[in-house]
């Protein structure tokens, strides 16, 4: 048996790990506008991409333009991304909806900071959870991922690109300031150790191609612009040929498909880490840097004889319902700590439907949620 090649280990910032992950996933385009605490992603991309064969970095005039450029690059066949923080994320929402409607793969990293408005720049917060879900207008599915440590920043960025390409949709990676500004030792996986998914391109002759046709997975193949498949891309509700339509049956067909292409793959999309959840009576549901505090609190609670567990959400939306329901079979209390006024506990309560008591821990003062805070609530049972 050949010996496995040793992985490269680096000491990296969360934001740096995002860049490593993106490049491993095949990202060749970054368009953005700087904003703390996400700026390092852009700065490192600015130094790395121009030195790569076919890598493009462009600093745009604002966040709206960044999203436009990223969508343009993706339509041209590139794996493209941008990164931002709360106020910039708000500006990106219009074109984010466009990317959903035109089924354009792309990755948007939002390193959250305190808000509303310009709020608490560079202080940790998780205030954009519901903005990530419902920020753009209209009914739409969206994939929102998260990471709680630097290694996960790398891994989840690769996952984000894979999901974007697989489902032809924008994917949001929600980080918080603690994760993206922590420095840790991480391992860079070797080629072949992780999946790299690229969008399906059409194999039929151009005259047969229908850009928004139904397929088994609900995801139509997508050729790069200028490759001989000429078609119309629009943010308007469109028919299978991509042309604007207002006919109810065509509108419903499109809306059903863009929802279904995500819905039917929940098992692939909804990622969680289950830590001591098999028999837990008190279960903490957390994400981002708070999940790290929660993990320590859960270990300490076990030491104190409380059957505690942690459901760490790596996918925030679509909300990992089936994982939560499994825990509801035996847990009497769910504890949801977060650095906001309760944006994810809403989802938990929705799924809980009165089975267990849901206790929330909320901080909006720009401070992290500590293990002892969580432990205190766990011990109250």
């Amino acid at each position, binding site marked *: 048996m050949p010996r496995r090649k040793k992985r490269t280990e680096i000491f990296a910032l969360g934001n740096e790990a995002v860049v490593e992950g993106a490049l491993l996933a095949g990202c060749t385009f970054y368009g953005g506008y700087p904003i703390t605490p996400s700026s390092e992603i852009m700065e490192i991309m600015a130094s790395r991409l*121009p030195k790569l064969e076919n890598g493009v970095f462009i600093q745009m005039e604002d966040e*709206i333009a960044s999203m*436009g450029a990223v969508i343009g690059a993706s339509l041209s066949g590139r794996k493209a991304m941008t990164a931002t923080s709360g106020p910039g994320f708000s500006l990106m929402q219009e074109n984010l909806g466009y990317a959903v409607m035109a089924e354009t793969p792309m990755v948007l990293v939002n390193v959250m900071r305190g808000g509303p408005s310009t709020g608490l720049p560079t202080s940790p917060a998780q205030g954009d959870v519901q903005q990530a879900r419902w920020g753009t207008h209209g009914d739409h599915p969206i994939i929102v991922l998260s990471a709680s440590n630097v290694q996960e920043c790398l891994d989840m960025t690769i996952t984000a690109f894979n999901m974007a390409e697989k489902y032809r949709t924008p994917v949001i990676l929600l980080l918080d300031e603690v994760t993206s500004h922590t420095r840790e030792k991480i391992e860079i996986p070797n080629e072949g150790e992780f999946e790299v998914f690229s969008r399906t391109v059409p194999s039929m002759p151009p005259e047969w191609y229908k850009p928004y046709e139904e397929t088994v997975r609900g995801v139509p193949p997508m050729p790069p*612009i200028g490759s001989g498949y*000429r078609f119309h891309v629009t943010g308007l509700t469109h028919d299978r040929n991509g*042309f604007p339509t207002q006919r109810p049956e065509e509108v419903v067909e499109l809306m059903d498909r863009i929802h279904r292409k995500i819905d039917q793959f929940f098992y692939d999309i909804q990622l969680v880490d289950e830590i001591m959840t098999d028999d837990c009576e008190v279960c903490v549901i957390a994400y981002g840097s708070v999940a790290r505090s929660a993990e320590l609190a859960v270990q300490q609670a076990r030491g104190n004889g409380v059957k505690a567990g942690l459901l760490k959400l790596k996918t925030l939306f679509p909300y990992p319902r089936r994982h939560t329901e499994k825990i509801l079979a035996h847990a009497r209390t769910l504890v949801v700590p977060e650095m906001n006024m309760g944006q994810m506990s809403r989802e938990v309560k929705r799924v809980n439907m009165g089975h267990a008591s849901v206790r929330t821990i909320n901080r909006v003062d720009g401070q992290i949620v500590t293990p002892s805070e969580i432990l205190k609530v766990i011990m109250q049972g």
Partner: protein
Amino acid sequence: MSKITGNEIIHQYLRHNKKFPHVLCAGCGHGIVLGTLIRSIHSLGIPKDDVVVVAGIGCSGRLAVYVDFNTVHTTHGRALSFATGIKISNPKLNVIALMGDGDALSIGGNHLIHAARRNIGVTALILNNNIYGMTGGQSSPATPEGSTTMTNPYGQLDSSFDTVELARGAGANYVARGTVFHVNRLEKIMTEAIGRPGFSLVEAITPCHTQFGRKNKYKSPVDMYNWLKSTAVPLERYNEMPEDKRRDRMPIGVFVDRDRPGFEERYYAMQQNFLKQAAKGGK
């Protein structure tokens, strides 16, 4: 062989079996602009697959549906940002951003000045009809001072934007203005603009009789075309006119014609340098 007529050329480029009739009003100048665009591309001999028309929102934005190129109908005001992403991703493509006056100058004003500053190799085609047509006739940055619209029933107080001066100041490579009355001239500048490297801008004055003319002193489309005929003067003649005669006249022609390399050209030259250095260092 018989001579190919303008119509026969246009028919090769329309998605004729798909989305017709079109949305434009009778008397609208937008179709004329689209005709000049198609003939320009045809005369330059650019294959359809190498053309990307990136349109904004509004009547002009809808034009992209009808032409058999790669077409992207974007969000309001953002056409140039999408076009920038496409051009830098694949510089071989001829990218044409097709926008209205509100689209390009109001909501998209920031993108316009920065596309010009960056000198990205996109041809910006602004269809200026002095009004927001599709939303029902509200004033745009190009609505002339004093004229009446749905949102300034007592007369426009703001002055009208000078697109040419804006683009010149921001650093565009090629800036020209034409009208749909002076079709041959418009076609000529459009052809030049598409052929130029870097950022080029063509402002095409195209009348909106339904939303603008009707509320002002132009009762019919013919009145509007007569207005174009009498208002527009070639730049050379305009420059020789005495100051008092210039008032209420609009110069048309080529205002800026520079030959600086586009952003994409400069970017890929930088990248080639890096790759060469790396190749040397590796051996």
